[in-house]
């Protein structure tokens, strides 16, 4: 990638004028705030740096903008206006995470901004909940309603009855929400993601003392053993790992790494592997223990590392030796014993070798054990903090804001129990149950931000009934998704290309980095940045909140944070200059030359093997095996992730790479199993669990286990705009809400189902291509 020229100057003096009147062929970086639309040259393209928000990974992007014509409504009149328009999103070539690359979802981001089903201003519900009757209101009225509600709660000493449920928020947006809740006096900022990371964080904390997500240096590894983590499609940071994968395969002369992928489903990641092992669901940890046993038995482990950097090895060795001989492991996992022995030797002998686990391996009642056992493999080969190994990316040195003090208004309510905690552990089922029961206290007001519980939580939890018990629900969604359609007040956020926000990617790419997003184009509609709404509400509620949140706009808060960063990185010079560089570059990251010294000689880490003993357990499954003969394997769709991409027509029309299905849902069934069930490709079936049933057409899938059916997550919306609504089925509806008990992660891979023929409901759209495959390819 050619490095773009950075030519924008601070003022709109001579420099900027020269640039803007340039030939129009140059690719110029532009800070939209500094250059008004009138100054843009028609036909010239300008690039603005931002961050992708289509999944939590946080890839850096640059957006091509040009001056263009649009129709818009002004005072009820349709008029044509010239405005800055976003034309194309590309990876930011300088961002260390994705280095100019993007995944399909990242490419589709413009269809979030220009989606025809965006909410265009604040709405207040007028009919019964779910009736979809709303009236437009002004922002003044919206803020007034919010403030009245929150002030009233506080006066009744019920501040804790405000719950702020969010997805995994970006860096400073999360800090702001946390400050807001603390200053208001509620302990209930609660995060929920369907495909979350609680299990991995806990496993890393128990074994390595780091409650964080690990960075895996695939690019420099020679051997990668992955356990159910679809890291080339949706897991953690798919672009970063795809880059690493490409380099591992063909980036080093004379060295081609090997990927062995263990997963109950033949995923896209499995398809790229040199070897795929369809393991029995939930037994990934058992396989890891079996491999560990052989590595230890045959003395293939890194003795020096074990002695110097680990604890609890003797007991672990004994456990592996006594409980996990290859034959027994083979029986439990369905992987042949010879394969286990061979893999153990290959893994230990082709270092640096990496083991990485996640996805369905973590989504079992024994998910924590699975991940601990998998991490133990990395410790055995001493591959912690080495090139080609596992490490923890350091955070950029932001300085902490002074903590929000308790005040007489907040002291009591802040000490109320958090509604999602049971004995210190997070429990979403407990949260929903408490909403429903009103015990230990009733929830009065619920804020929903970047979360859609009516789509991503199993209905078996009683989510809808629980929401019915909450008197006042506010959604900050940009779209009328299932949960927003249930809200009393919808205060639509800007979309990410119109917003200020930033993200420290986790896992990162080994070097401290933060991506900063600035408004690339002016907001299309009468929406407002949720962070700005919170600041406005805070200062209106009272002086104590204003003291804790003194910023007029979120942009000011961000700027202050970056002042701290500027001081800490000691780049000298004046802050405004630093800030402009950050805006042009799309963030701040440690320069490459300082980076190598950091990642090649990382902090020493110690590894504790003993949690493998204390957390050992077998997976349990919901649904009797005779009544429900199949495992249900759900997975985040490469197009829609957890469903958030389903309103984008590019992604709907994209043929699924494994099945070529477009515009719908499907269930993957092994051809032999389908024959036994008497169904063939395109036939409709019921998939039924102890908690519900859905219908979907069959795809005969040679990579399905005969005892497992696979269904992608993402479709089956009942709202969320014209492209998503009433299309396909949502398999989350089938889940029994079993949990991994220690971390509170949802065990979404632990439900069993039965399958039966259903009446025909329409076609399965597959995009059958004429094939040009030749023998040459196989030579």
């Amino acid at each position: 990638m050619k490095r773009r020229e950075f030519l924008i100057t601070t003022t709109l003096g001579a420099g900027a004028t020269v640039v803007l009147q340039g030939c129009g062929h140059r690719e110029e970086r532009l800070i939209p705030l500094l250059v008004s639309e009138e100054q843009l040259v028609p036909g010239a393209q300008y690039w603005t740096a931002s961050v992708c928000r289509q999944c939590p990974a946080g890839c850096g992007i640059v957006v091509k903008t040009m001056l263009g014509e649009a129709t818009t409504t002004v005072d009820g009149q349709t008029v044509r206006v010239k405005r800055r328009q976003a034309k194309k999103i590309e990876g930011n070539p300088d961002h260390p995470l994705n280095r100019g690359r993007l995944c399909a979802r990242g490419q589709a981001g413009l269809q979030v901004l220009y989606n025809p089903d965006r909410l265009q201003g604040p709405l207040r519900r007028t009919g019964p909940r779910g009736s979809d009757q709303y009236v437009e209101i002004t922002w003044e009225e919206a803020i007034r309603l919010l403030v009245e509600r929150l002030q009233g709660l506080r006066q009744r000493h019920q501040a804790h009855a405000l719950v702020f449920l969010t997805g995994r928020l970006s860096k400073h947006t999360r800090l702001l929400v946390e400050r807001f809740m603390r200053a208001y006096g509620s302990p209930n900022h609660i995060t929920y993601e369907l495909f979350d990371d609680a299990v991995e964080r806990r496993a890393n904390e128990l074994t390595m003392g780091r409650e964080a997500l690990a960075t895996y240096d695939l690019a420099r590894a020679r051997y990668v053993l992955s356990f159910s983590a679809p890291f080339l499609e949706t897991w953690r940071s798919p672009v970063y790992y795809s880059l690493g994968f490409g380099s591992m395969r063909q980036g080093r002369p004379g060295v081609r790494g090997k990927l062995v992928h263990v997963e109950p489903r033949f995923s896209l990641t499995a398809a790229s592997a040199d070897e795929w092992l369809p393991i029995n669901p939930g037994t990934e940890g058992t396989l890891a223990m079996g491999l560990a046993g052989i590595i230890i038995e045959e003395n293939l482990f890194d003795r020096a590392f074990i002695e110097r950097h680990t604890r609890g090895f003797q007991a672990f060795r004994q456990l592996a030796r006594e409980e996990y001989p290859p034959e027994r492991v083979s029986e439990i996992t369905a992987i042949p014993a010879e394969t286990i022995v061979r893999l153990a030797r290959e893994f230990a002998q082709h270092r640096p070798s990496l083991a990485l686990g996640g996805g369905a391996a973590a989504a079992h009642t024994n998910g924590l054990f699975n991940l601990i056992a998998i991490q133990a493999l990395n410790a055995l080969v001493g591959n912690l903090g080495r090139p080609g190994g596992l490490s923890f990316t350091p955070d950029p040195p932001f300085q902490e804001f002074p903590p929000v003090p308790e005040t007489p208004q907040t002291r009591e309510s802040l000490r109320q129990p958090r509604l999602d905690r049971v004995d210190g552990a997070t429990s979403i089922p407990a949260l929903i149950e408490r909403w429903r029961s009103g015990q230990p206290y009733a929830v009065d007001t619920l804020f929903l931000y970047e979360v859609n519980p009516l789509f991503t939580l199993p209905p078996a939890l009683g989510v809808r009934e629980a929401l019915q018990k909450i008197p006042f629900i506010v959604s900050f969604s940009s779209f009328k998704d299932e949960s927003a359609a249930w809200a009393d007040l919808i205060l639509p956020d800007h979309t990410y290309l119109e917003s200020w926000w930033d993200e420290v990617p986790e896992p990162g790419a080994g070097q401290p980095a933060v991506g900063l997003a600035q408004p690339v184009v002016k907001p299309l509609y009468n929406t407002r940045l949720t962070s700005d709404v919170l600041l406005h509400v805070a200062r209106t509620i009272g002086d104590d909140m204003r003291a804790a949140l003194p910023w007029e706009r979120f942009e000011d808060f961000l700027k202050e944070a970056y002042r701290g960063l500027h001081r800490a990185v000691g780049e000298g010079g004046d802050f405004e200059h630093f800030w402009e560089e950050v805006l042009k570059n799309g963030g701040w990251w440690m320069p490459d030359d300082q980076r190598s010294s950091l990642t090649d000689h990382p902090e020493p880490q110690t590894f504790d093997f003993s949690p493998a003993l204390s957390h050992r357990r077998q997976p349990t499954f919901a649904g009797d095996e005779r009544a429900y003969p199949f495992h249900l394997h759900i997975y985040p769709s490469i197009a829609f992730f957890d469903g958030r991409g389903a309103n984008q027509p590019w992604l709907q029309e994209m043929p699924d790479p494994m099945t070529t299905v477009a515009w719908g849902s499907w269930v993957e069934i092994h051809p032999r199993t389908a024959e036994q069930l008497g169904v063939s490709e395109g036939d409709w079936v019921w998939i039924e669990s102890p908690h519900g049933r859905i219908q979907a057409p069959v795809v005969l899938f040679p990579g399905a286990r005969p005892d497992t059916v696979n269904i992608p997550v993402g479709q089956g919306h009942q709202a969320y705009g014209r492209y998503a609504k009433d299309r396909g089925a949502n398999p989350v509806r089938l889940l029994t809400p079993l949990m991994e008990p220690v971390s509170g992660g949802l065990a979404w891979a632990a439900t069993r189902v039965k399958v039966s023929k259903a009446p025909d409901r329409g076609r399965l759209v597959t995009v059958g291509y004429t094939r040009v495959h030749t023998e040459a390819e196989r030579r």
Partner: protein
Amino acid sequence: MAKWGMVIDLDRCTGCEACVIACHAENNLPIVGEEESAKGRQHNWIRVERYWEGEYPHIRARFIPVLCQQCDHAPCEPVCPVYATYHNPEGLNAQVYNRCIGTRFCANNCPYTVRVFNWFDHHWEKPLDEQLNPDVSIRTRGMMEKCTFCIQRIHRARHQAEDEGRDIRDGDVQPACVQSCPTEAMVFGDLDDPDSRVSQRARSRRAFRLLEELGTEPSVIYLKGDEWVEP
């Protein structure tokens, strides 16, 4: 004068389809919807084909991104009665939209089935149309279209190089698919320049071309999937 070409390394390609969406976004490809998709009328200038090999559990899947191969001996060119499809001096197989009268002879004669016909005029729900790339013309009913190697990007890069009084450098031009590819499976450049990345990769022992035996002389070179051998 450059000779533009592309190398696609199938040992890196994961089949992720980032290239497919990147192409849609860059080239104003229409969304045809469920009905037309079912009829096989999707507009894709690049598609990712998937092949199954073997039997469970020793199943393998292979992916091949297929786009216009920009053949030197292009079977589509001589059959066009109005010279709408022609060969440009840089080796691109170009399509002149306003000359095309929609006989579809070229598509019939393309062994790679990469040409897409516009059966209809297309419609973008507002404001989705604000995204449309003004560098690429919108095709209307009755026109044939296909991958151009992002010729608009080649033009931009050339103009920029001219402004700066220099030649185009290796890496200046990246078609949208190449640029997005998360595994760096695709490389684009001048095949006449022996030092370009694309020429270097094209010299791989794994290189082959699709349907080579037809003598079409494609400008897209594939590198076949590699095997792991125990060192």
